[in-house]
């Protein structure tokens, strides 16, 4: 039998086209919500490797040349929400986590 997935939070905790932060197994995770997309939640690490602070969930999201990105609220670099890559600095990369939505729950894994 498949193991039950961990519940992170409810969808009403998310903010459309914007981010919130959740604590999952001791790790800060930035969750972004795009209600219209096929894959409506995206999760990356909240740690900004360039600004050196836990802030990415508070960045503005959007797209640049077709890539779904969040802009760091500290120094404005853009990170690809699907791959974690930084568009301005190929040394910097975010961890990307699989998450999904079932009913009104955001699930980990």
């Amino acid at each position, binding site marked *: 039998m498949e193991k039950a997935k961990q519940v*992170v*939070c409810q969808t009403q*905790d*998310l*903010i*459309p*086209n*914007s981010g*919130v*932060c*959740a*604590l*999952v197994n001791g790790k*800060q995770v930035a*969750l972004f919500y795009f209600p219209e997309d096929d894959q409506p939640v995206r999760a990356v690490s909240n*740690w900004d490797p360039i*600004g*050196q*602070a*836990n*802030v990415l969930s*508070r*960045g*503005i*999201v*959007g*797209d*640049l*040349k*077709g890539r*779904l*990105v969040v*802009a760091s*609220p*500290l120094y*404005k670099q*853009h990170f690809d929400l699907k791959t974690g890559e930084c568009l301005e600095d190929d040394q910097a990369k975010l961890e990307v986590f699989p998450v999904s939505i079932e009913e009104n729950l955001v699930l980990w894994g």
Partner: protein
Amino acid sequence: MKKLRMVVAGNGMVGHHFVDQILALSTDIELTVLGAETRPAYDRVHLSEVFAGKDPKDLSLTSREYYKEHNVDAHFGDAVVAIDRDNKSVKTESGRTFSYDKLILATGSYPFVPPIKGSECKECLTYRTIDDLGEIKANAKDAKIGVVVGGGLLGLECANALKNLGLETHVVEFAPGLMGVQLDQGGSKMLRRKIEALGVTVHTSKATTLISEGDDTKLRMSFADETHLDTDMIVFSAGIRPYDQLARKSGLEVGERGGIVIDYHCRTSDSDIFAIGECALFGKMIYGLVAPGYRMAEIAAQQFVDADEKPSFTGADMSTKLKLLGVDVGSIGDAHGKTADSICYVFSDEKAETYKRIVVSADGKRLLGAVLVGDCSDYDTLLQYYLNEIDLPGSPESMILPATDGSAAPALGPAALPATATICSCHNVSKGDIVNAMDAGCCGLPDVKSSTKASTGCGGCAALLKNIVDHEMEARGLEVNKSICEHFQFTRQELFHLIKVEEIKSFQEMLDKHGSGRGCDICKPAIGSILASLWNDYVLQENHVQLQDTNDTFLANMQKNGTYSVVPRVPGGEITPDQLIAIGEVGKKYNLYTKITGGQRIDLFGATLNQLPDIWRELIDAGLETGHAYGKAVRTVKSCVGSTWCRYGVNDSVGMAIHIENRYKGLRAPHKLKFAVSGCTRECAEAQSKDVGVIATENGWNLYVCGNGGMKPRHADLFATDLDDQTLIKYIDRFLMFYIRTADRLQRTSVWMENLEGGLDYLRQVVIEDSLGIGEELEAQMHHVVGTYQCEWKTTIENPEKVKRFRQFVNSNASDDNVVFVEERGQMRPANEVERQKLIAKSA
């Protein structure tokens, strides 16, 4: 084929730049780097910033990992001690040998310590490396007085450091004046005057003969004129000497007064050995600046490219612009007027403490040199005239005379620059290179930037580059693409117009009608700001939330560690003791760092996200409101006490300031807006450095506009005189709304006005004479905004749904364990990296 083995001795700024150049060229070279210092290359030019609080780590230009990744065999803390030219190998201090096909010497230079008896003592230091810096700091701990020997560029920079460390600071110079190399006598005098006003004592024409123990101080310096000076530490900054011992010992040609002799290709007298940077002597000259060193590195690297014609080093311009102890100093070309028959013009203003001198050729056509002290705003223009030998205007003195009745000094348009004009000095890109790139198909700024690399270094040339690109686009009949980003093909001004005319109320609606994609961090806040300026809805309304920068979303200013600062509004800077106590109590309760701002308010730092609503609840209960310090909005109206208290005041400046602040508070604009009101022409509120400045006169108010402080300060222009209260407000209403309507994103009023065709005069026509017939409309719009004001924090804390947004984690009550503080001067501050690691480890 066997790979070429290359050894680079010295990993300073220039040595590292060379490595980067080679890496960009080819992979067929096996690189070894040997550095004497224990750390990889760092930015020496900005060394002094460490005294101002910068982390030395932030200075690094590269890292061990970077070298490793690029297969560079790098060794640090192991100096090269000998070159064996016959066997083509070098030996290091630790006894290792490395063989080379080509050897690059980039060993730089060291500070010269004059042979004075006693100068070996442990309180006698130098200033060149990060290690030196540590020594200076350590010595300063139990010192009261510090002396810098040498009044040149580096000496003065060092004096600033000593002053910042809290020492009584002296500069001792052998020559009769400061910065003798770069400044003439007049400039040097003005600099001295300004520096002494800052509390640094300058002693010139002093030859130190002995350093001995002092009576009450650690040291005493005795001078040839039989005077003496007591001090606790001495930093020598009396010039630099090239590290050329290696070359000397191995028989390479060196200059009479030191320096490894190189030719046009940066080759030494041994064709397999090159020398670059401050250890190299070219045309009898050591180039003690980083830009010429970089150029040498590039030229040396190019010698390993397979090409018929290899570029040459032909010397470099030594013009400099810098800030010493906060004083702007600029020096161009022949600053001393040594050229035969040259003519010079001098303008000296002892009140403003500025000094400007230009040296012009006998026929009055060419600029040969210049000296600027106290005001460097003309530097860029003068430098272009000098470098590009542009014909001077008929009366060259107009270049440095202050503008009278609106006739500003002739600015240099992009068309006037010759093709050879250097635009980006970091990457050595000329106007010709830019034009060529555009001929080859580059279209628009981003294209030009990525193809020429212009403006990708320090960025200082960004404005000039944009001007040139725009000019060239227009000349080619191309439409200049002024769209704000890839999602909207419009300027901010056009967006404003569309939103207003079509009464668009949300970003989504705007995107559906006029845009594409999802939007980004450029267009979202820009449109958010326009929506706020026009309709003045609550910024955290559901459909606006996603548009705001974090500062606007959380109604506070994010600081470097992810915490926020909080600034309650203090209209006109007037505050009751009870409000002060209330702020103090909040600061104490939440353990916040408090500081008085330049805008006469109190800033509380270090609040975490979840604390913000609680903090504001208490502040609002005490009768305070949000100060909008986080928004591109009206910030503060600074004021002096005016006629109520001051003996000189002619009108109630505080009353007017409060009136103005309450009228415009919260007004969203393309950029932040600052105001000030002074009670008389003595101008204690510094109104002439603000976007809107008001000064009381015997007959009413004088209105000044478009000034600003900050990175590029600008004096405000006198807009209208002797206004009554009502007219004053009317003009400000119109001025602000016209700005909000027509300015570009993030364009301050000064730049906006300078870019308006017709400038100040046009602005007067629109606002005073109502030449466009929109005066009433602008006023009506302002009335709407004023009438719909709300304190965003009040609205927020009254709404539990909104308060939820301030949770650190949606699924936990924990706090961010990365945010840790230490105490300094009786308050908390964010821990630095080292402290943080320690604190986090301890708590784990």
